[in-house]
């Protein structure tokens, strides 16, 4: 089964979506098996495709689309190593999450709709990584945004969920507009939407510097929106209103990384825009910091994970901005697995706690849900980047790349962010699983069902073991080498002592430090920071008041403008323009009707006078 069949991946999932939508009510379990069957098939196909790519290398296929004059828009698929990696990630995590959802979403009245949405999302995501046409890519990008909106607002009875979905959509929309403009700039500069064509032109120097930089900057703004970079990150924490499987799949492993993937896909072009890449790296670093910082002050379990995701995304963006595209993708891969695992674990906890997510009310869950505890711990260790988890290797690669391309200060900053990661992770684990149970729900919690545990365990394997992919042994030159993304040169994995040892020390060291800090305080008392620096704490706890700032902007700028435009539309366009002619006609009618006197005499008089005038005119003309 060669990779020319890759189009089956989105097609199968899309077909599943349609089938569930129309036939779901006739099938048992409302169509969920259809979704799982399709994604399992995709998972199986992935292995076939992988063997094909590993032996023969990546290839592109073209399917001609349409032609209008001298503009021809064609559609094709490109399956190279990068696409393969993404396919693997999406199918694996989707499969795990969907099986998990069988247990988690049981009993929900919109069970079938959930799986339909999941299938649609899988289809869009798989299509996204396959296409080589920017326009189709954009369409699919929008589609995944739509699925995200629908799934965040899945519990539509909840006001907060609806608001969160709206927020996610609107914030990412701002980015999407920039993305579209960027794509269009590229189109006008090159005359094509095809990525391979654009890269060729860029390499040959046929695109002007300004166009390249402009489009790259705009595209990055679009990516920043979906990838929750600062300052577009505000939607991600709120997106936790969606069900936990959704958070696991979409907001940890796939949708938010679609942008990162896109950066890697565009790498042949981005090597020509170093200025933009500087900004990219800066944004990534800031995001990594802010995310970690904010995660320290959250009390909601899923929100800690959300900010953690934001922070890790920042690291990936930092890697991309430092021309370490391979390292960034590797971290994308490992993060996808362990973050999904963590989210599924959080879902289990939430299920056990009857929907409660406030960590202050948890505690001691280690005893009642041991398997979840162990798996969650594995995920957490990978998140901190403890050796020998996969997270260590991917983070290490990023730091190495940053050191190579940029300077040591950035590496130090990256290490600091890692340190903060350790702190908040430890805090999280402590508050949830260790110590004494702090509430009734915590005491009565129960372990999850096998349907939910099995996928989590499945995700645990790559969490622990995927690190080996980074190394080079035998013919395999390491993950980044496997991807062979630009810039050229060897991407072989190497251990840089200046990074390796400090990273090790920091991660383990802060683990222990955090343990000491929080263990004593696993009772419900404010931390040292909170008591000593209350304003700083409030600043962080309120997410830097960014949400309030945005709301203020919306209220005072956006709504004001839209209200005045609405007023203009109503008063001028509607009342004067549309009603105007009507009213005018009525006015004319009202005025002119007085000539209908009803008396014959006036009518005949009019005729006589007109006839006389007519004769006069005729005579005068002649």
């Amino acid at each position, binding site marked *: 089964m060669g990779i020319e069949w890759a189009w089956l991946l989105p097609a199968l999932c899309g077909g599943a979506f349609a089938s569930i939508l129309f036939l779901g009510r006739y099938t048992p379990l409302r169509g969920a098996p259809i979704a799982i069957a399709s994604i399992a098939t995709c998972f199986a196909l992935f292995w076939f495709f992988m063997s094909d790519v590993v032996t023969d290398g990546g290839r592109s296929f073209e399917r001609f689309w349409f032609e209008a004059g001298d503009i021809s828009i064609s559609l094709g698929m490109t399956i190279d190593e990068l696409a393969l990696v993404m396919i693997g990630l999406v199918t694996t995590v989707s499969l795990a999450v969907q099986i998990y959802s069988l247990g988690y979403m049981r009993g929900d009245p919109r069970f079938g709709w959930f799986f339909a949405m999941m299938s649609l999302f899988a289809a869009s995501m798989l299509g996204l990584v396959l296409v080589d046409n920017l326009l189709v890519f954009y369409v699919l990008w929008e589609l995944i945004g739509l699925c995200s909106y629908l799934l965040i607002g899945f519990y539509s009875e909840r006001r907060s969920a609806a608001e969160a979905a709206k927020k996610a959509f609107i914030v990412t929309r701002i980015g999407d507009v920039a993305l579209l403009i960027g794509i269009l700039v590229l189109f006008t500069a090159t005359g094509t939407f095809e990525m391979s064509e654009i890269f060729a032109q860029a390499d040959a120097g046929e695109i002007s510097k300004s166009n390249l930089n402009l489009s790259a900057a705009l595209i990055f703004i679009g990516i920043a929106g979906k990838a929750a970079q600062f300052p577009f990150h505000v939607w991600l924490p709120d997106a936790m209103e969606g069900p936990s499987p959704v958070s696991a799949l979409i907001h940890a492993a796939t949708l938010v990384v679609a942008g990162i993937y896109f950066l890697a896909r565009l790498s042949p072009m981005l090597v020509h825009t170093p200025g933009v890449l500087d900004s990219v790296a800066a944004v990534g670093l800031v995001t990594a910091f802010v995310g970690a910082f904010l995660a320290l002050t959250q009390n909601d379990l899923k929100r800690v994970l959300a900010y953690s995701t934001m922070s890790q995304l920042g690291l990936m963006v930092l890697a991309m901005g430092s021309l370490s595209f391979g390292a960034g993708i590797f971290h994308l891969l490992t993060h996808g697995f362990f973050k999904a695992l963590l989210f599924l674990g959080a879902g289990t906890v939430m299920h056990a706690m009857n929907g409660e997510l406030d960590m202050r009310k948890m505690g001691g869950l280690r005893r009642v849900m041991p398997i979840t505890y162990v798996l969650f711990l594995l995920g957490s260790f990978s998140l901190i980047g403890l050796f020998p988890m996969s997270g260590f290797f991917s983070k290490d690669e990023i730091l190495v790349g940053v050191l190579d391309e940029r300077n040591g200060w950035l590496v130090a900053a990256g290490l600091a962010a890692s340190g903060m990661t350790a702190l908040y992770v430890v805090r999280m684990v402590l508050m949830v699983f260790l110590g004494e149970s702090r509430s009734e729900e915590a005491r009565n919690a129960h372990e999850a069902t096998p349907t939910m545990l099995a996928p989590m365990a499945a995700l645990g394997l790559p969490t622990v073991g995927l690190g080996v992919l980074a190394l080079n042994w035998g013919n395999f030159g390491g993950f980044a080498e496997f991807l062979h993304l630009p810039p050229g040169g060897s991407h072989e994995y190497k251990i840089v002592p200046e990074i390796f040892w400090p990273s090790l020390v920091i991660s383990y060291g802060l683990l222990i430090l955090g343990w000491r800090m929080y263990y004593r305080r696993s009772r419900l008392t404010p931390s040292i920071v909170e008591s000593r620096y209350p304003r700083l704490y409030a600043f962080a706890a309120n997410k830097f008041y960014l949400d309030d700032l945005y709301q203020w902007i919306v209220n005072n700028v956006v709504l004001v403008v839209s209200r005045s435009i609405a007023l203009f539309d109503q008063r001028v366009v509607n009342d004067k323009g549309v009603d105007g002619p009507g009213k005018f006609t009525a006015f004319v009618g009202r005025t002119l009707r007085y000539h209908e006197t009803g008396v014959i005499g006036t009518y005949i008089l009019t005729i006589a*006078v007109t006839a006389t005038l007519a*004769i006069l005119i005729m005579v005068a003309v002649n």
Partner: protein
Amino acid sequence: MFFAISTIAIAGGIGTVITPNVVYAALFLLLSLLAVAGIYILIFSPFLALVQILIYGGAVIVVVLFALMLTRQSGEAGNLDSRQKPIAFVAGSGMLAVLIATVLKNSWPDPVDRQVVGLTELGSELFTRWAVPFELASLLLLVALIGAIVLARPSDKRPGDNS
């Protein structure tokens, strides 16, 4: 000769539109129409003159007089002229001025030498070349006849009668 007859015609016309007495007005019209018939004779159309006298003098005036009789209004002494008489005067004179100006401005050709049109010739023309309009005219008369009868019928509605 022509001037005399035309004077009578014009005088009759003036009388028709001036006099306050309805019957006199009808009679003045009769005078005018007869004078017009005379004009017809002068311009080689005796048949038309006969038609004129017959139809107008015989039928139309009689009908008018009948109608006058049937629509007698109480207090007939009232003015027959409408409120807009002055304007009418203006309009009428305006029209006259325009028409006469038109007539006098143009140069008309000299008359052709004419013979009186024979009756047989007229008849054959009427029934061959102008047969269709002839038939249509008779149809028109039929319609007018029926229409007049229908319109002038007394509407006999007694209570409980649906006719």
